[in-house]
């Protein structure tokens, strides 16, 4: 999919002012400068990506463009005239609409109801048919088929995203800001989204695409603005750049994008047999069999909501399976609780870091105590020393060991969590089995690399490592073996080197690979 046509198109209308621009904007938050003197512009009829690590300031910039934040300094300019947006609604009134990473839809409302929710231009008496016709027309024009009568709660994640996009289009947005829109989509859904994006720019809309996935950025955008630490480090046309160059601009040094494979001893560290987890009558996990050997990383791929969370919880003893067994280090821990699983040698890094893995309201020191064995009195001295050591070794940016975990950024919270869980992996008496959910989600490239290194190190120390992630690239870059989870079942399993990408993609989308062949 060459973006060159659109790029050429934007060249011809160069004389027009940009659809939206940020001129020297600065935004400060307590303790950080999220955006420092940032310049950015999108022309009519182009896709412009803001690329950057987490915490680089991408979302802050987008939030200022759509009216969610107001810049401390600098101006947002729309079609050549400066704007002072007071709210996202104000932004929409100026034709600027944002599609957030986390959807803002009411589950119990229909698609049409959600679309007019909060729309100040609706008449006092709503005309549902007019809304539905308009929604259908927009769907047709931009390749966004949605059923206006469907309830949001019944829709897939991909469909919900479509509703969000239709919603901003319905409000008449000409500038669309898409914040990490592909994070929750299957590969076919990503393709469909890109078709929509191209249809939108072809109609003269301007699209701001926020991402940190280099492959997508290259395929969908005309130009890329790269941010690092709140500064713009470069603006390039995708036609004249490469993934490697973008990666370097993003992290400020060249990155090794290779993978290492381990050698396993063949001894089973973690074993699940016939695992079934039910919610009332719905099946969350359907007879899952899984073995993870010592010295190997097994990756569970799959689109969000196919049983990953429940699998992790059942394996870690937090949830009791309806059927089946969980064996950790040779000990049957089925239904015996999280403590029994830990005593059998488990370390577990849940996907929700602040709120599950770490207690936001407790200090780093106290968070170090969370999964330690505790006597009648807690041993804060050791925990404090552990926290200090973690801050130094893992280069954690924290005000100190007594700071509350809530002040940490996502990457730093993940480091604290990993420091606690992985500290003694492979040592005698330490954990021999590691379960990690979405280990690098939301982390910048540098931190992600560091985390991958830690997991490789755990494997080299002989641990059985299970990585559960919705990010296929992450699974592929880490795992020796990959299993795909679809609707609570293992749909595909095999060595990472032998599985083809399209095979995995189809299994993730629920297509039986045998049928395709």
């Amino acid at each position: 999919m060459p973006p060159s046509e659109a790029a050429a198109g934007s060249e011809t209308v160069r004389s027009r002012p940009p659809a939206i621009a940020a001129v020297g904007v600065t935004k400060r938050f307590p303790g950080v400068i999220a955006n420092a003197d940032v310049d950015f512009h999108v022309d009519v009829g182009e896709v412009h990506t803001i690329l950057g690590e987490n915490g680089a300031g991408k979302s802050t910039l987008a939030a200022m463009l759509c009216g969610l934040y107001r810049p401390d300094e600098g101006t947002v300019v729309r079609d050549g005239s400066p704007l002072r947006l007071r709210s996202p609604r104000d932004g929409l009134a100026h034709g600027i609409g944002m599609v957030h990473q986390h959807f803002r839809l009411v589950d119990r409302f229909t698609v049409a109801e959600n679309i007019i929710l909060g729309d100040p231009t609706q008449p006092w008496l709503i005309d549902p048919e007019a809304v539905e016709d308009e929604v259908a027309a927009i769907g047709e024009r931009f390749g966004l088929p949605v059923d206006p009568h469907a309830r949001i709660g019944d829709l897939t994640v991909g469909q919900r995203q479509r509703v969000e996009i239709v919603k901003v289009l319905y409000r008449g947005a000409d500038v669309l800001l898409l914040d990490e829109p592909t994070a929750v989509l299957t590969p076919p859904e990503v393709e469909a989204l890109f078709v929509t994006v191209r249809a939108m720019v072809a109609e003269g809309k301007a699209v701001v695409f926020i991402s940190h996935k280099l492959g997508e950025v290259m395929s969908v955008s005309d130009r890329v603005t790269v941010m690092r630490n709140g500064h713009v480090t470069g603006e390039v046309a995708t036609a004249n750049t490469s993934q490697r160059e973008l990666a370097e601009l993003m992290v400020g040094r060249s990155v090794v994008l290779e993978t290492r494979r381990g050698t396993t001893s063949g001894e089973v560290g973690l074993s699940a047999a016939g695992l079934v987890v039910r919610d009332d009558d719905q099946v969350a996990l359907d007879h899952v069999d899984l073995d993870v050997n010592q010295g190997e990383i097994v990756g569970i791929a799959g689109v969000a909501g196919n049983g990953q969370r429940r699998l992790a919880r059942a394996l870690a003893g937090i949830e009791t399976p309806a059927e089946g067994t969980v064996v950790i280090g040779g000990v049957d821990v089925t239904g015996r609780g999280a403590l029994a699983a830990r005593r059998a040698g488990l370390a577990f890094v849940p996907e929700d870091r602040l709120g599950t893995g770490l207690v936001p309201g407790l200090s780093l020191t106290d968070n170090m105590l969370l999964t330690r064995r505790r006597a009648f009195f807690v041993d804060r001295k050791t925990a404090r020393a552990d926290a200090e050591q973690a801050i130094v070794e893992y280069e954690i940016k924290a005000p100190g060991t007594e700071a509350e975990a809530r002040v940490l950024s996502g990457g730093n919270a993940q480091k604290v969590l990993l420091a606690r869980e992985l500290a003694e992996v492979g040592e005698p008496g330490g954990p021999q089995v590691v379960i990690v959910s979405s280990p690098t989600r939301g982390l910048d490239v540098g931190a992600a690399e560091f985390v991958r290194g830690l997991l490789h190190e755990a494997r080299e120390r002989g641990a059985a490592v299970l990585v559960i992630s919705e990010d296929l690239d992450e699974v592929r870059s880490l795992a020796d073996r990959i299993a795909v989870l679809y609707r609570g079942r293992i749909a595909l399993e095999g060595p990472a080197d032998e599985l083809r990408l399209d095979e995995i993609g189809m299994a993730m989308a629920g297509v039986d690979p045998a049928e395709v062949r």
Partner: protein
Amino acid sequence: MGYTLQLERRLSTNWKQAVFTPILSVLAALAAGAVFLLIEGFDPISVYRELFDASFTSKFGITDTLTIAVPLILTGLAAAVVFRMNLFNIGAEGQLYLGAIFGSWAGLALTDGLPTVAGVGLVLVFAAMGGAVWALPAAVFKAFFGTSEIITTLMLTFIALFLMRYLIFGSSSYWRDPETTNFPQGKRVPTSARFELFGDTRLHWGIVVALGIVMLVWVLIRFTSLGFDMNVVGSSPASAAYAGISTRRTVIVALLLSGALGGLAGGAEVAGRAYALDPNGLELGLGFTGIVVAALARYHPFGIVIVATFIAGLRNGGIALQGLPGERVPVEVSLMLQGAILLCAIGGDIFARNRLRLVRTAPQNVEAAS
């Protein structure tokens, strides 16, 4: 160009805010109270001075204030230990009554002839048990069925209230003094079940016990695994499940502990002031006031001591105001101030957690746009 006020979340709260916020809240409440006093035609300065003098400047004023503070410290702790984990036992009032019922039974039945230490000790142990027993249904329903403890503890309070009245006014129970038939009263416990007094004052050794329990609760919250578990369960139930901390067990233990503290307040009242199961002397809203105490003290045990003393002073002074010659300031003034203080404390909390900033909205720079 203009200015806007913004609330900005503080990254951390330091001890200065913890100390000054309550003080400023109290001053704001006194200012609000002054308005009403002025409307009623009183001179607020002199009323406040009388209030202060009556509670804090004379030997008997101070000791009476401290006597009232004893149960408030304990009910304050009862509220604080669970409120800080978002568990709202608002039934310390009923737990106090049950503590008084159990404690006075022990005093009447078990302590005759014992040395005071053992006698009073028995009263307090039974009182704590009584309070815990009264919290038990709420704890079990909360832990196993998720029933709102706010509702159950409140309803249990009314049952406790009428149970106590029944024991004295409605029946010839063990607790009722058979010799007073005209106006029913509780049987008085023997001296072995009474705290000793300090000199010729009404202040009793209960204050020392209460302070000791403050220390124990502080150590429990701050240094023990149980306190740690309570912290985790309170602030992040998902983390508790993840770490294998039993939410059920922790919730039950915490509510029982809270009930026991409420019960202790009842025991201390029996052993230190009422000397009998005396509905008239116990129905003072001490349990409910404990909630105010805990909230003002931001659930910190040491803060509770200070706040309880302060509120006790208000109550003490409120009573004294009535006896003033000429002015006849109603006793409700002290209740009104209590309410105003609570409201101001809640408001003050916003400023302790957030920084108020006057922000100059950025001047529009049109040239930069071109």
